[in-house]
């Protein structure tokens, strides 16, 4: 019975209190039409014997309030404050507690790798239930949320996800470390994400992952990994070039820590200049270009170097059939400053003695990467990066037979990251990029013999700053910078005169708005502006970028986008091989900058409990002001006009395409399939009666299949199978009489041969099947060791890098020269 009395006592007390409460709220209060400060409002309530409680700092006592009524009940007054001034109230007997309703706070910080302290760009920060973002390029994130209790979930491919529950009642700095996972990863990552600033714009390749796929010479190559992505297969198998969506190989912007690398291949394109020992990740864009990128028409490859371990020292290296590389990293000041240094060199010349030959034939390549960073405060970080890559080919010891080709890239960059507030991040970059190409040869004239040295240089100086501002469901990036390019062209006629210097100034600015309009619709609207000044040419260029993305559900996204890109450096060389001795020339009034307009519709979905990912893209690309050599001008045989303007034709291109990729995680088996359909037409004056004609080097269909199977953590096998329909070429079809014979009435055996329709002949289809085996030890105190063994092109027919059509004895023969096959490889990688 006692319990029953108690129960009724409580009920009655509550009802009484409620009744009291109700009475109290119905009290009338007198007001005038004047403006009150909140402090005055609270005083008026206190005059009614009501106790008020509030946090004066947060609520803002000076805030002006104007009531639309002269008399009001306390209840109505509180309602008015809540509705019009976001001030909520809790009533307790005769006490009112005022708080600022929906107070928002910002949680920000860096996402880092546990142990090394390497920042992780693009980590997904998801806050239940409806908020999310990604860490930026430097690992920084910021997310603004209403006051409350949340669970934050941080995930990054290749790392163990981390969940953390916290109460957000003030601005919070939360740096999070993620531990690396031993789980297998997809080679290329494309992720649809709902409720977060979108990441479907690009493909990320995480270079921390051991590359299990078969690789030529056993040399892991950053650029070659991109060739698995649909739409990048226009290059030649075995070469480190990508021809993206029908563009040529000169239309790819390749950035190393934000600095353009002008020649990203070692000779003759079988290896890129990027030593993967020193690299962290690659972000690859072939469409949906964010406004911060400009300068090339077809793609952006943004490569990030590692920063160096903040905690412990490591040494590692790799030897394969082509190169030998080594790296060392470690702290300079523990948790404050670190460094990484790496070097790579071809070793074949050293072993065979070719490089030591008295006659002096020499071929070698080398790369050196250095990077150091220092965090003086938790809000500042300074980076210093250096890269130098050299190629040398030829013989220069015998004065009678000098014939050398050498080139080098050098980059030095100083970067400062600063967090102004938990919502404002800045990045300031100063860099110098330098590309030199030197050819030496002996030229014989009628009476003379002389060594001719042609030196081509391109220097780029750049200073820029950008800011990223984070708001709830909104991210604003903006930046500006100034750039100077100096081109120095060789004058072949006068070897001592190398004053053919051209200077170009560019002032670049951009603004990018990433907005989550609601939980399903995300858009990124941006504009890139360039003021371009070269000689008399002073022009403004605006490049709009729009990407609208709709999340159909938690697993599927559909997006439409438009990007306009300009290319201010024309490059003249081979269409499908990025030759170092290709000329790079500034856009001018005569040869306006290249323009590319890309329209794209893209669908991405996760299937089978989010284990599989399918991506489908449809695009249409228009390019204008693109250059090609005039028919008859031949870079290989040095049949080139003195004035480069006489070497080229300016034209346009139209490309349509469909790209499908499918990744399936059937652990321990992982498969990836990609398909590319392209239709590429171009138009140049004087060719094909000024009508559009088929581009020769874009295959219509490309299929790539990769599979990786891990028996356990140590043993893995993999395969790549590729197939593409044949490329096209023009071949001589017709034999006619010679014009000399016809005009001079001579009967002879002299004949002329005439092409058939332009690019109408289809070469043989190409295919290749590669196999690889990888053995890797676990990471212990004895280090980690990886052995790779395999065969590229075990069977197949690779795409040719040279095709000729010859007529012997009035019979036409086609000769295709491609990489030899099969190409076995073996490599050993270690890390302590």
């Amino acid at each position: 019975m006692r319990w029953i009395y108690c129960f009724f006592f409580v009920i009655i007390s509550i009802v009484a209190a409620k009744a009291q409460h109700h009475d109290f709220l119905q009290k009338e209060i007198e007001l005038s039409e004047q403006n009150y400060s909140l402090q005055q409002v609270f005083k008026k309530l206190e005059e009614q014997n009501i106790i008020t409680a509030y946090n004066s700092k947060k609520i803002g006592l000076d805030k002006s309030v104007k009531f639309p009524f002269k008399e009001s009940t306390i209840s109505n007054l509180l309602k008015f404050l809540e509705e019009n001034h976001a001030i909520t109230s809790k009533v307790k007997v005769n006490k009112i507690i005022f708080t600022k309703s929906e107070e928002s706070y910002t949680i920000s910080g860096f996402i880092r790798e546990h142990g090394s302290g390497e920042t992780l760009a693009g980590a997904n920060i998801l806050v239940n239930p409806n908020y999310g973002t990604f860490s930026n390029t430097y690992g920084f994130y910021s997310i603004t949320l209403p006051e409350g209790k949340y669970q934050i979930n941080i995930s990054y491919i290749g790392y163990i996800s981390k969940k953390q529950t916290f109460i957000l009642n003030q601005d919070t700095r939360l740096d999070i470390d993620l531990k690396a996972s031993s789980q297998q990863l997809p080679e290329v990552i494309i992720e649809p994400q709902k409720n977060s600033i979108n990441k479907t714009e690009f493909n990320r390749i995480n270079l921390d992952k051991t590359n299990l796929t078969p690789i030529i010479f056993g040399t892991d190559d950053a650029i070659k990994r991109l060739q698995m992505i649909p739409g990048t297969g226009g290059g030649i198998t075995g070469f480190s070039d990508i021809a993206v969506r029908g563009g040529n190989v000169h239309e790819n912007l390749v950035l190393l820590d934000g600095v353009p690398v002008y020649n990203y291949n070692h000779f003759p394109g079988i290896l890129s200049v990027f030593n993967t020992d020193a690299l962290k990740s690659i972000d690859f864009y072939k469409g949906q270009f964010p406004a911060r990128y400009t300068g090339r028409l077809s793609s952006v490859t943004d490569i990030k170097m590692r920063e160096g371990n903040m905690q412990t020292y490591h040494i590692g290296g790799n030897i394969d059939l082509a190169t030998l590389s080594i790296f060392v990293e470690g702290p300079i000041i523990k948790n404050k400053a670190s460094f990484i240094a790496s070097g790579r060199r071809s070793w074949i010349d050293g072993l065979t003695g070719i490089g030591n030959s008295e006659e002096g034939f020499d071929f070698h390549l080398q790369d050196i990467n250095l990077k150091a960073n220092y965090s003086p405060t938790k809000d500042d970080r300074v980076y210093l990066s250096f890269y130098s890559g050299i190629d040398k080919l030829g013989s220069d010891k015998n004065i009678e037979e000098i014939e050398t080709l050498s080139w080098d890239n050098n980059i030095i960059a100083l970067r400062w990251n600063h967090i102004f507030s938990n919502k404002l991040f800045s990045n300031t970059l100063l860099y110098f990029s330098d590309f030199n190409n030197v050819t030496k040869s002996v030229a014989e004239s009628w009476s003379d013999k002389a060594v001719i040295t042609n030196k081509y240089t391109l220097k780029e100086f750049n200073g820029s700053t950008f800011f990223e501002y984070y708001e709830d469901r909104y991210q604003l990036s903006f930046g500006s910078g100034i750039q100077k390019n100096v081109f120095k062209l060789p004058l072949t006629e006068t070897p001592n005169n190398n004053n053919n210097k051209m200077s170009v100034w560019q002032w670049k600015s951009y603004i990018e708005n990433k907005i989550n309009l609601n939980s399903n619709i995300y858009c990124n609207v941006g504009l890139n502006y360039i003021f371009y000044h070269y000689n008399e040419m002073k022009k403004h260029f605006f490049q709009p970028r729009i990407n609208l993305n709709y999340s159909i559900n938690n697993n599927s996204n559909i997006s439409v986008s438009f990007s306009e890109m300009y290319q201010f450096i024309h490059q003249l060389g081979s269409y499908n091989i990025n030759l170092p001795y290709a000329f790079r020339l500034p856009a001018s009034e005569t040869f306006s900058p290249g323009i590319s307009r890309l329209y794209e519709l893209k669908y991405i979905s996760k299937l089978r409990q989010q284990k599989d990912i399918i991506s489908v893209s449809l695009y249409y690309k228009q390019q204008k002001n693109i250059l090609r050599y005039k028919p008859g001008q031949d870079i290989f045989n040095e049949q080139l006009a003195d004035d480069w303007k006489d070497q080229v034709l300016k034209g346009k291109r139209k490309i349509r395409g469909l790209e499908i990729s499918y990744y399936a995680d059937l652990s321990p088996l992982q498969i990836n399939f990609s398909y590319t359909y392209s239709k590429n037409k171009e138009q140049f004056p004087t060719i094909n009666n000024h009508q559009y004609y088929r581009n020769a080097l874009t295959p219509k269909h490309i299929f790539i299949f990769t599979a990786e199977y891990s028996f356990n953590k140590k043993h893995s096998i993999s395969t790549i199978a590729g197939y593409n329909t044949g490329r096209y070429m023009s071949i001589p079809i017709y034999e006619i009489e010679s014009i000399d014979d016809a005009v001079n009435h001579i009967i002879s055996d002299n004949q002329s041969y005439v092409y058939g329709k332009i690019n109408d002949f289809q070469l043989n289809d190409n295919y290749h099947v590669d196999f690889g085996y990888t053995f890797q030890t676990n990471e212990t105190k004895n280090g980690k060791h990886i052995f790779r063994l395999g065969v590229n092109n075990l069977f197949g027919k690779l795409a040719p890098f040279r095709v000729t059509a010859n007529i012997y004895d009035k019979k036409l023969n086609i000769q295709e020269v491609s990489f030899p096959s099969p190409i076995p490889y073996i490599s050993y990688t270690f890390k302590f």
Partner: protein
Amino acid sequence: MRKLPYLLLLICYFSSCSKEYTPSPQQEKDVPVILGEITPNKPIDIILTNAKNITSPNYVSSEKFSNVVLLDSNENNLDTLTFQENNYWKSNYKVQPNENYTLQFQYKNNKINAKTKIPSSFYAEILEQETLSNDTLLLKLTIEDVSDDSFYVVECWQYANNNYSKLSFLNNDKFTDNNKYHELYSPYKRLFFKTSIPRQITLKIITDPYSISSEDKFIEIRVKNVNYNYYEYLYNYEHQLQDEEFYLPNNNKYLGVLGGSYNIILKTNYLHDTTPQITDIIPIKRMPTTL
């Protein structure tokens, strides 16, 4: 020389992946060919024939040409060409400089039009002549009264022993396409240049030493003002003669070219009997001969 075995190995390795094949029959088998040059003061002689498709070597086209007529720019019929031997079609109609003409014919039930323009007249003469050696002659020419955007082709011919033969020559004039584009190798058989101002040209002609014994001998410098299409065709043709992997572009419904030309022929005597070591400079002024 330790490098040689490795280089050899490398070459063998790479050459092993070279594949040669003959393509299956391609494209149309019956394609008309027009070859000829129309010039004022000379009868029209044009070859009309069928091209041979080298991917179908056993196929011989039997397509015939008919209703071959010459039209003016208003499509008025000026003359009907008559068939001659060796596929020549002839007309005695005299074309005029600065006029457009169309050669129209019936082929495979289609009417095909080949258009050409006869360029304007000009003036050319030999200014200086110098014998450098037994077989080398230095000539300086001038070309005047040029019209805007004229295309010139210069050829050197030698007449000896009752035969004409084309001579090679050297030239260093920067304005010529030979020296601008570096697509043709020196010594040249044809010199190409575009000009809208008077020009002087220096030719170092390499004569045929075996013709010394001939009594009736001379050198002809044929200077032609040609229309753009003909200029391009001759340039590409010359390129093909020097580079066996270079072929003529196919830009028309027919192959070949109907060239329009205004020709001036400059004649000069041989000076081979001059002592080679002594350099003679003989100024020559003579009226050009037009054909």
